[in-house]
């Protein structure tokens, strides 16, 4: 009985479970590869090597992890928010032209239009409904800003460690926020995310992935927008 319930749970949540496992496996791989690279450099410089525990709590590891996190969350934040107002004719990722904007309460099933199975805050009214109506963007935006802040602090420490090893003065945190290193790390990630999202919106007009909800049905017209299959 218990085994059947577990199997059903795994089947019904396979997408998030598989991505959770892939994330952890990749993070462990990054930690091990990063540790080897870090210690190679330490040995070459005649400095003390570090343990895995020391490495995963170091600024070097933190900046490498968070510079990627912030850009991914920025990408999804922009995608979630901009697709409210911007459309791409023919893309399954877009609303149909003419439906731009926040839409009516009736269509969004909020306030008095909430249904019995709607989330409680959708029908609660006032600030609860207001907050819940933007909760996805708010959470994605908070994770983006939090990751970017941690990147700035860890990147600052890593940069200053390098400055000192080259017999140069360290920078203040505010000084680091205006440095080429901070913006190079940020922008090199942002450009790839914007390219991936933009090309996905355009490719999905003309190309198909049979069975994927991220694609239109194989036989759907190039002109049909907001249809997934």
């Amino acid at each position, binding site marked *: 009985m218990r085994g059947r319930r577990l199997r059903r749970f795994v089947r019904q949540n396979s997408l998030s479970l598989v991505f959770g496992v892939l994330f952890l496996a990749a993070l462990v791989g990054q930690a091990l590869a990063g540790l080897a690279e870090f210690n190679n450099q330490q040995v070459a410089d*005649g400095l*003390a090597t570090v343990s895995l525990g020391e490495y995963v*709590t170091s600024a070097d590891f933190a900046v490498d992890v968070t510079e990627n996190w912030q850009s991914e969350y920025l990408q999804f934040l922009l995608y979630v928010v901009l697709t409210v107002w911007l459309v791409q004719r023919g893309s399954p990722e877009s609303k149909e032209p003419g439906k731009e904007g926040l839409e009516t309460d009736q269509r969004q099933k909020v306030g008095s239009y909430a249904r019995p199975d709607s989330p409680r805050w959708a029908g609660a009214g006032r600030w609860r409904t207001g907050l819940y109506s933007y909760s996805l963007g708010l959470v994605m935006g908070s994770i983006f800003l939090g990751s970017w802040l*941690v990147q700035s602090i860890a990147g600052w420490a890593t940069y200053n*460690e390098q400055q*000192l090893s080259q*017999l140069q003065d360290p920078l203040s945190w505010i000084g680091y926020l205006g440095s080429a290193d901070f913006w190079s790390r940020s922008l090199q990630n942002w450009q790839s995310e914007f390219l991936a999202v933009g090309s996905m919106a355009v490719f999905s007009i003309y190309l198909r992935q049979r069975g994927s909800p991220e694609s239109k049905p194989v036989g759907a017209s190039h002109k049909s927008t907001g249809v997934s299959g």
Partner: protein
Amino acid sequence: MRGVSVFGAGVLVALTVSGCGGGAGSAQAADVARSFYAAVAADDGATACDLLAPQTLRELEESAQAPCRTAILEEDIPDAGEVVKLERYGNQAQARFRGDTAFLAEFEQGWRIVAVSCRPRADQPYDCRVEG
């Protein structure tokens, strides 16, 4: 409230991993720098050389064509005075004294002097009389 504390914890973790904000490592680095200047002032070249990074010691002996314990005392290392500021990031540190600036790094055996008797130059690394 929970969101704020999670956010605060993230920043705290970032500050901890960044290795800034002093701590035992900074105090040890400052002690090593002080001991080095004290040894030079006391003409104790052997102790001063024990506190040099391996690469720095090698460079000094090669350029002076003499053992470190005598060469280090010929370098006119200034009287440093008190520590004005110590900044440490990871395994690197800079100790600013009233009369001199030193750079240190953390090795297997502890903090060692990488460069000493250093003068700042605009937009360039410090110009150091002794460096590795």
